[in-house]
C-alpha cells in the first residue's frame, strides 16, 4: 500500500503522538501515585516510630486489649487513617482497631499466604466499602515479623490524584493536538511542492523532455534542490534522447543507404521481427508470417532446401550465419539476391539456442556488377587470346595468299590445277576476313581515327543498311541537326552499324523496325556505379533499337563473346557483335544492351565527343 507523504506523516503522528501521550500520562500517573504513596509511607513510618515502642512492648507482653485500644486511638486521632491492626511475631493477627470487628476479606486467604505473589508490595490499595483505601504496613522492629498495618483513606487523595491526572491529561491532549496540527501543516508544506512538482511533470508528459519544472515558491530547500536536480536530470535526459534520436536516424539512413535490414529471430518462439528496410528488401508487409516457414517461403525454390539445411547446421554447430541467397519478393515477384548475416545466442545453462540477431542486405546490384566485371574480364581475356591467334594466322594467310597469287600468275590459263589454286585463295581470303574480324574484336587491328561527324557516317551507310535489312524491316534514323564530332575510324564505325543492322535483321525474320538515333549525353558517377566501368564525361550516344524477338538473360550475358551465336551452324560466324564490341572499346567507348525475350533489343553506344560539349 502506498501513501501520500502527507497521509504518511499524519498516520505517523497519529501513531506516535498517542503513544507519546500514553507514555506521558502513564508516567504522570505513576509519578503522582508514587509521590502520594511516598507521602503515605512517610506518614506511616512516622506513626510507627511514634508508637512502635509501646506497641512492640504490648505485643511482646501479649497485651491485646491495650494494643487494640491504642490502635483505635490511633485511628481516631488521625482522620486519614481508617483503621489499624497489628500482626505479632508469629505473623498472626494480634490486635485491631475495627470497632465492629475485623473484616473477613481484609486478611489474605490461607492459599495466598502460602503462595505469596512474587511482587508483594508494602502498599495495597482497594476499596473498603465505597471508600478507596491504601494499606501500608511497617515492621514494629526491623527484621522481625511483627507489623503495624495502617489503612489510609484515599478518598481525598484519589480525588486529588484524578484532578491532577485530568489536568495533566488535558495539557497533554492540548500539546498533542497542537503537535498534530503543526505536523499537519508541516506535512502539507512538504507535500504540496512535491504534488505541484508531480503535476507539472505529468503536464510535461509527451512534451519536450527538456522543459524545466518551475520551483514552487516557498517550498523547502531540500525539495527545491530535488526539483533542480530533476530539472538537470531531465535536461540531460533530453540531450541523451536527442542524441539517441539522431543516432537512430543516422542508423536508419545507414540502413537505407546500405540496404541493410535488421532482424531478431526468437528461435524458441519461432518468430522474428524485422526492420522496415528488411521488409522493403523482402517485399513483405506487416501481415506476412514472420516464422521460419515464412522465411523459407521467401527463398527461391532452387535454394530453399539448401538454406533450410544451412540454418539447421549453423545452429547445431554454433557457427555464424553468412550466406547469400536468392529470394522471390511476394510484393512484385522479383528475384533478388540477399546476403544474410546472423549470430545465434545460446542459453548459458543448457546450451539451447535462444535468439538469432543479424542483418539482411540486398546484394542484387552488387552481384550484377560483379557479373559484368567478370564478363568484361572474360571479354578482355578472350580478346587477348583471339588477337594473338588472329595475328599469327593473318601472317600465315598473308603468306598463303601471296604465294597463291604468285602461283596463279605463273600458271597458264588452261592449267588443270588453276581452279584448285583459285579455291585455295578464296578460302584464304575468307580466313583473312575472319582474322581481320578477330583483330578488330581484340583491338589489334590498326584504326585510322580522324575527326568525323557521326551524323555523316550514319548518312553514308544508310542506303547500304536499307538494302541489307531488306524491305520487311523499316529503318528510321533520328539524327540531331548539329554535327556530332568524334575522333573515329569512319570505316570501323560503318562496320559497327552494318553488324548491328545485320544482327537486328536476323532478330526480325518477320519484319519489324530498326531505329538509329544519335544524341549527346554526359556520363556521371551513377553510370560508373551501375555498370562497374566507364569514365565520366561528354559522349555521343548512338542508340540502335529493334523490335525483334529479343533475347534471354543468358544470351545477353554472352552476346559479345567471339563465336557465340544463336544461329544455326553455318549461318553466322559469331563474330559480328564481338567486332562491334572490339571497335567500340578501341574507340574508348562503351556499349550496353537491353533486351528481354519478345521485347526487342536496344544497343546504346557511348563514344567520346571530340569536343567536350554535351
Amino acid at each position, binding site marked *: 500500500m502506498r501513501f501520500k507523504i502527507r497521509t504518511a506523516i499524519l498516520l505517523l503522528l497519529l501513531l506516535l503522538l498517542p503513544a507519546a501521550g500514553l507514555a506521558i500520562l*502513564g508516567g504522570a*500517573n505513576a509519578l503522582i501515585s508514587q509521590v502520594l504513596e511516598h507521602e503515605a509511607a512517610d506518614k506511616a513510618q512516622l506513626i510507627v516510630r511514634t508508637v512502635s515502642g509501646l506497641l512492640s512492648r504490648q505485643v511482646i507482653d501479649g497485651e491485646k486489649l491495650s494494643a487494640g485500644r491504642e490502635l483505635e486511638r490511633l485511628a481516631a486521632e488521625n482522620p486519614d487513617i481508617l483503621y489499624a491492626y497489628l500482626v505479632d511475631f508469629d505473623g498472626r493477627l494480634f490486635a485491631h482497631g475495627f470497632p465492629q470487628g475485623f473484616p473477613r476479606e481484609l486478611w489474605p486467604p490461607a492459599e495466598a499466604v502460602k503462595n505469596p505473589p512474587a511482587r508483594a508490595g508494602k502498599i495495597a490499595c482497594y476499596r473498603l466499602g465505597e471508600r478507596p483505601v491504601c494499606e501500608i504496613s511497617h515492621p514494629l522492629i526491623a527484621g522481625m515479623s511483627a507489623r503495624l498495618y495502617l489503612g489510609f483513606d484515599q478518598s481525598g487523595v484519589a480525588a486529588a490524584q484524578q484532578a491532577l491526572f485530568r489536568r495533566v491529561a488535558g495539557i497533554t491532549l492540548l500539546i498533542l493536538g497542537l503537535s498534530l496540527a503543526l505536523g499537519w501543516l508541516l506535512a502539507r508544506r512538504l507535500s504540496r511542492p512535491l504534488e505541484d512538482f508531480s503535476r507539472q511533470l505529468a503536464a510535461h508528459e509527451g512534451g519536450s523532455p527538456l522543459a524545466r519544472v518551475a520551483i514552487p515558491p516557498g517550498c523547502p530547500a531540500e525539495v527545491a534542490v530535488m526539483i533542480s536536480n530533476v530539472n538537470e536530470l531531465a535536461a540531460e535526459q533530453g540531450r541523451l534522447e536527442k542524441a539517441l534520436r539522431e543516432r537512430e536516424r543516422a542508423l536508419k539512413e545507414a540502413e537505407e543507404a546500405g540496404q541493410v535490414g535488421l532482424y531478431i529471430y526468437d528461435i524458441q518462439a519461432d518468430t522474428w521481427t524485422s526492420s522496415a528496410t528488411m521488409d522493403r528488401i523482402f517485399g513483405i508487409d506487416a501481415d506476412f508470417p514472420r516464422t521460419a516457414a515464412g522465411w523459407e517461403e521467401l527463398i527461391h525454390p532452387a535454394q530453399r532446401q539448401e538454406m533450410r539445411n544451412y540454418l539447421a547446421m549453423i545452429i547445431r554447430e554454433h557457427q555464424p550465419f553468412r550466406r547469400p541467397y536468392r529470394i522471390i519478393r511476394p510484393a512484385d515477384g522479383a528475384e533478388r539476391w540477399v546476403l544474410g548475416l546472423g549470430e545465434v545466442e545460446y542459453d548459458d545453462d543448457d546450451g539451447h539456442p535462444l535468439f538469432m540477431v543479424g542483418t539482411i542486405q540486398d546484394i542484387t546490384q552488387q552481384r550484377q556488377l560483379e557479373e559484368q566485371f567478370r564478363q568484361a574480364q572474360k571479354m578482355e581475356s578472350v580478346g587477348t587470346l583471339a588477337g594473338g591467334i588472329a595475328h599469327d594466322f593473318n601472317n600465315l594467310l598473308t603468306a598463303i595468299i601471296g604465294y597463291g597469287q604468285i602461283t596463279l600468275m605463273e600458271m597458264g590459263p588452261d592449267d588443270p590445277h588453276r581452279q584448285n589454286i583459285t579455291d585455295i585463295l578464296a578460302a584464304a581470303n575468307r580466313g583473312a576476313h575472319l582474322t581481320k574480324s578477330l583483330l578488330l574484336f581484340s583491338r589489334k587491328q590498326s584504326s585510322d581515327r580522324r575527326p568525323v561527324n557521326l551524323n555523316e557516317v550514319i548518312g553514308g551507310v544508310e542506303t547500304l543498311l536499307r538494302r541489307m535489312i531488306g524491305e520487311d524491316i523499316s529503318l528510321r534514323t533520328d539524327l540531331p541537326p548539329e554535327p556530332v564530332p568524334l575522333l573515329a575510324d569512319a570505316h570501323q564505325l560503318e562496320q559497327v552499324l552494318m553488324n548491328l543492322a545485320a544482327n537486328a535483321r536476323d532478330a526480325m525474320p518477320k519484319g519489324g523496325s530498326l531505329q538509329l538515333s544519335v544524341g549527346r549525353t554526359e556520363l556521371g558517377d551513377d553510370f560508373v556505379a551501375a555498370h562497374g566501368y566507364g569514365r565520366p564525361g561528354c559522349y555521343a550516344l548512338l542508340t540502335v533499337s529493334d523490335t525483334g524477338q529479343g533475347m534471354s538473360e543468358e544470351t545477353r550475358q554472352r552476346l559479345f563473346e567471339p563465336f557465340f551465336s544463336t544461329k544455326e551452324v553455318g549461318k553466322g560466324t559469331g563474330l559480328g557483335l564481338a567486332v562491334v564490341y572490339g571497335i567500340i572499346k578501341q574507340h574508348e567507348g562503351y556499349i550496353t544492351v537491353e533486351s528481354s525475350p519478345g521485347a526487342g533489343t536496344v544497343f546504346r553506344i557511348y563514344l567520346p565527343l571530340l569536343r567536350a560539349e554535351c
Partner: protein
Amino acid sequence: MRSRSFTIFFLLASLLFWLGPISCESSESGSRRVNPALVLSEQEVAELPSLTTGPAAFKFGFDLRNTPEEDARQYLPFLRYLSQATGLAFELRFTPRGHSLAEELAAGRVDFAAIGGLSLLAAQRQGLVTPLAQGKNGAGKTSYQAAIIVTPASKLQRITDLRGQRLALGDRNSTQGHLIPLIILHEHGLSLADLAAHSYTGSHAACAEAVLADRADACGLQDVMARRLADQGLARIIHWSKEFPASGIAAHAGLEAAVIARVRQALLDFAPQGRDADGLYRWEQTEMAGGFAPVVPEDYLELARWVDFFGLLAPPDTTGEGRP
C-alpha cells in the same frame, strides 16, 4: 479511496487508543473491594493463618537489656550467624512481661537462650536445660562483674554510704542486675532492708536511667554498661564486684542431641572480634563480646549457693544466715 478509508479507520483506532488509558485510570484503585460488614468472630481471628512464611525456626530467647528494637538489632545478626553456621533457622523471642526466661527455656517455649547464671540455675531447677557455652568478654575472660554506679555529682563514695539510700536494680532474674548487687550489699554488711528503697527496673539500661533521672541514688548493673557510662562521664562507679561466671547460651534439653551439638560447635567457633565481626551490632557491649568458651558446670556452684542463700529461687532468706 482506499487510502482515505484506512486513514479514517486509523483515526478512530487512535481515538480509542487515547481514551482507553483515561477511562481505565479511574477504576485502578477499585480493583479489589472489601466488605467491612463481613467481620470475623473471635474464634475465626484465633484461627487465621499466619502471614509468616518459611521453614519452622528454633526460638532464641534472651533477657531485655535495652529497648526491644535495640536488643533485636544486637541479636538478629548473631542469629544469622548461627543459621549460616548450623544450617538451621532461628527466630528471636522476647520474654513477655510476667514471664522469666528461665521459665520459657525450662518449658521449652524457647529452644535456646542467652542466659545469665541466675536464670540458668532457675531454669535448670525447673526443667531439663543444658548449658552450651560460656560467654567471653572482650578480654577473653569467661567471667563478669557487676558494678554500683552513682551520678558523678553524688556524695556517695562507698557501699556503706548506701544505707538509707534508694537503690535501683535490673530484672529480678538478672545475675548482674540483681544477684551480684545483693552479694555486694551482703559483703558490706547491708541488705535491702537497710536501704530507704529499692526497685526492679526490668533492665540494666532502665536501672542506669533511674540513677541518671534521679529516681534512684545508685544502681547495680552489668560491668560493660557501667564502664561505658563511666567513660562517657555520665556515671561514677563506686564499687566493682568480684568475678563471677559470665552469661552463656543454654538449650532446652528436649532438643535433638545433634541440633544441640551443631549449635554448641557454632558457638565455640563464633569469632565476633575476627572473621564474624561484619554485620554484628554493638556486640562488644554484650557479655559475649569475645565469643564463647566451653562451659564448666562447677563454675556455677558458688552462684548456686548464693541463690540459695538469698532464696531467689525460693522464698528469700532475709535473715543473713546460710551465707555461702
